[in-house]
């Protein structure tokens, strides 16, 4: 019995030594990686809207042209994805070509974050089934139930600590070594989304404004002679039937609001990417030592910010 106690003590000692240096929870990294992954998985819808925006811009132009020369409608529709434009049609085919590479670039970031989360996950080093079997080893041995439970628990702790040491070391070195690349990728994606996509939405918005403002002004000119008999009392100017204009303005405002929502979603996504880079940098700045409480709290803080931005992004996509 004396030997048993000595061995138990030895096991406890190993457990305490390893756990003191390596057993700090990696769940903050897992949470950070999970929430960042969820946010990024919605990206393809945004990437596809680059081409979508260009096509909507073109559709507005076709509608305008159709008022002038309706006989050329088929030809205009056929040129929607034309890549040899002279400026009369936007080259939406160029956006279509970049759709997949852009989605793939974001996917590289998603895969990286997802794998980071998996490596930090608690269930990866769960040996509960195997450890439960240990109980049978003590059948017929002079161990009581409490002692068996203690040994099983300590063995679990030691195994977990040992494997966590490996996880931490691998994660730490990958995060430190690749922080610059993650910063480059997130910055570039942010730039594409918050400046380039937003500028394309601005072009679409201007085309929308042109379409509706020109239509309303043309309507004023069109309607004036026919309604000349109705005049305002004060200025003696022709009075227009306001109903078509009211309806048109409502449609215009609705379409503008949709574009504005997309712009806001794009900016939210940019902030998400920013927070991914900052969170990753916080982990890397710890010099690969992922057991630092301050570092883990920082990662968790960025995860919370990302989580709060997801709804803004999802509102439009």
């Amino acid at each position: 019995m004396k030997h048993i106690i000595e061995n138990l003590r030895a096991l406890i000692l190993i457990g305490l030594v390893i756990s003191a240096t390596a057993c700090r929870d990696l769940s903050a990294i897992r949470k950070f990686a999970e929430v960042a992954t969820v946010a990024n998985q919605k990206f393809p819808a945004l990437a596809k809207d680059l081409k979508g925006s260009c096509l909507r811009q073109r559709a507005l132009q076709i509608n305008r042209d159709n008022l002038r020369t309706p006989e050329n409608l088929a030809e205009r529709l056929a040129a929607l994805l034309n890549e040899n434009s002279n400026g009369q049609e936007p080259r939406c085919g160029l956006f279509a070509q970049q759709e997949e590479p852009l989605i793939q670039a974001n996917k590289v970031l998603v895969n990286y974050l997802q794998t980071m989360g998996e490596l930090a996950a608690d269930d990866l080093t769960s040996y509960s089934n195997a450890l439960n079997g240990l109980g049978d080893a003590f059948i017929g041995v002079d161990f009581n139930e409490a002692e068996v439970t203690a040994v099983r628990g300590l063995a679990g702790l030691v195994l977990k600590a040992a494997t966590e040491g490996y996880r931490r070391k691998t994660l730490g070195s990958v995060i430190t070594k690749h922080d610059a690349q993650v910063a480059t990728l997130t910055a570039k994606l942010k730039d594409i989304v918050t400046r380039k996509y937003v500028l394309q939405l601005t072009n679409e918005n201007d085309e929308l404004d042109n379409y509706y403002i020109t239509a309303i002004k043309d309507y004023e000119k069109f309607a004036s002679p026919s309604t000349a008999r109705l005049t305002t009392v004060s200025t003696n100017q022709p009075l227009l039937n306001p109903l078509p204009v009211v309806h048109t303005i409502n449609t215009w405002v609705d379409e503008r609001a949709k574009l504005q929502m997309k712009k806001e979603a794009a900016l939210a996504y940019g902030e998400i990417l920013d927070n991914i880079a900052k969170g990753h940098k916080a982990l890397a700045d710890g010099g690969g030592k992922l057991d630092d409480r301050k570092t883990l709290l920082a990662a968790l803080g960025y995860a919370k910010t990302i989580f709060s931005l997801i709804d803004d992004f999802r509102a439009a996509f």
Partner: protein
Amino acid sequence: MPTLTAEQSFQLAQNYSAIAHETDLYRFRNFDSLSAAERATLEDRARSMRNFSSEFVAISITLDLDDLEGTLNNIEDATTRMRRAIERLRKIGNVINVLTAGITLAGAIIPGSPVAVLSALEMVVISVNEATHDEA
């Protein structure tokens, strides 16, 4: 002609977009004093500028993605490295299962020798430590 950078292409996109916008504003402000032909010409010019702007946006994104190629490969390598670590931990899990079964067997064969069981357990810990630190 020198090749455009992504940033230069984007600057052009911004400038063309701004010119198109200003042209539209001018047309709207002077709508009644312009002739129908003048309005049509201005509308066409603004459209061309805006279309070129969209084209420069697309070119800028293409150049951005070309620039990213090395970075993407590097991050993919890091992902592969972490996947290997995950696989290794899973394998270690299997090793522990086998070793634990061995201990169970030893406990059954040598009843009354808890010292042997505990020693074997220590061996499992050492094996796991060696295996996990081997590659890290």
